[in-house]
């Protein structure tokens, strides 16, 4: 009996232990199932997150590539900007050089223009002297010579007030021709007499630098000389209104007249005398 009891108790104990074990297993199984469910849920979530992460990675990759492109483009743009700055600096330097060169050329051009104008002016001055000389010797007619002297004074010097004097055999100067003045106010005079005679006595061309201040209004007095002998005189009074003063060319014309007008006038006078005396031509 006791053995039977013992057996039964052992079985009962084993059964209870098995039951307890089975319950534990069931409980554990439940826990595992819950864990599996949780894991599955986590797995799904992770898969979802993984999918999202993959999308993000793709976006990130796209963005990274885009960033690479942009960085490349930026680098390229900066390189181009650097080149452009360099080109701009070169262009600015070249422009500065060109401006300096242009200024030099303009200055050179101005200098050439001035030289050209000076040459033109000198040519004109020489032309004036040549024309005056040519015209004075173009005729032996006394009236023509006197007219030519007047024309030279009017047209080349610029005065319409003048008197041409000639010395007679006794050395007295008389008016031979005049323009724009009252010739009667000039009576015969000798060298050293009166305002004109005094100027003639010096034997050189007299030029009044301030004719307006002179009481006789004489602007210039030109002795007409053959060698050392003064055979006549040219007195120039007021200049034309638009001619403020005598210039260097005018003085040269006076010097020319002093020699060539006297020669021409002397020849014309001799010619006229020869005609009167019936000398064969």
């Amino acid at each position, binding site marked *: 009996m006791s053995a039977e009891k013992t057996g039964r108790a052992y079985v009962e104990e084993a059964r209870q232990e098995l039951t307890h074990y089975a319950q534990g297993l069931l409980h554990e199984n439940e826990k595992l199932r819950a864990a599996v469910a949780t894991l599955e849920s986590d797995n799904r979530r992770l898969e979802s997150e993984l999918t999202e992460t993959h999308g993000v990675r793709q976006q990130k990759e796209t963005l990274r590539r885009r960033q690479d492109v942009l960085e490349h483009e930026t680098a390229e743009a900066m390189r181009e900007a650097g080149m452009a700055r360099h080109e701009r600096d070169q262009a600015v330097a070249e422009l500065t050089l060109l401006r300096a060169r242009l200024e030099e050329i303009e200055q050179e051009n101005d200098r050439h223009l001035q030289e050209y*104008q000076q040459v033109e002016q000198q040519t004109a001055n020489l032309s004036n002297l040549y*024309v005056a000389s040519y*015209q004075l010797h173009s005729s032996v007619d006394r009236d023509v010579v006197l007219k030519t002297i007047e024309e030279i004074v009017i047209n080349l010097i610029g005065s319409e007030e003048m008197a041409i004097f000639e010395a007679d055999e006794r050395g007295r100067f008389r008016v031979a021709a005049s323009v724009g003045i009252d010739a009667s106010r000039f009576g015969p005079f000798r060298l050293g007499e009166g305002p004109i005679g005094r100027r003639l006595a010096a034997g050189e061309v007299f030029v009044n630098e301030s004719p307006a201040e002179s009481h006789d209004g004489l602007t210039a007095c030109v002795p007409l000389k053959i060698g050392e002998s003064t055979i006549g005189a040219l007195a120039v009074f007021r200049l034309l209104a638009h001619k403020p003063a005598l210039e260097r060319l005018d003085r040269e014309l006076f010097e020319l007249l002093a020699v060539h007008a006297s020669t021409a006038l002397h020849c014309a006078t001799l010619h006229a005398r020869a005609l009167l005396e019936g000398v064969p031509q």
Partner: protein
Amino acid sequence: MTRKRILLVDDSNTILMMEKFILSNGPWDLITASDGEEAVCKASTEHPDLILLDVIMPKMGGFEACRVIRTRASTNAIPIIMVTTRGEAANVEAGWANGCTDYVTKPINSVELLAKVRSVLDSVPVEVAQ
């Protein structure tokens, strides 16, 4: 193309010679007349492209010649530069009133004359030879 022609009018040989000297190096042919009547005649027959006209001349003065040239259909378009010793306003006004294009004063300044001649002729079309 024919060369442009300039009629120089002055009773003074000195001035005519002077003007020839100044203008002879230019690309122009020069014609001369010694008084206003001859100037009017040559303006009609020679058809110059420009006339340099003295004011005080025998037979017909410069102002009258200018007026006659302006009244004729064949010559009224010819530019005329008056050449005068009188630069006063009244004389200049008289020149404008008689139809002159411009004026220069004597003594002639070559640079001024050349500039005015070039200025006037540059605005005149050149005749084309037929």
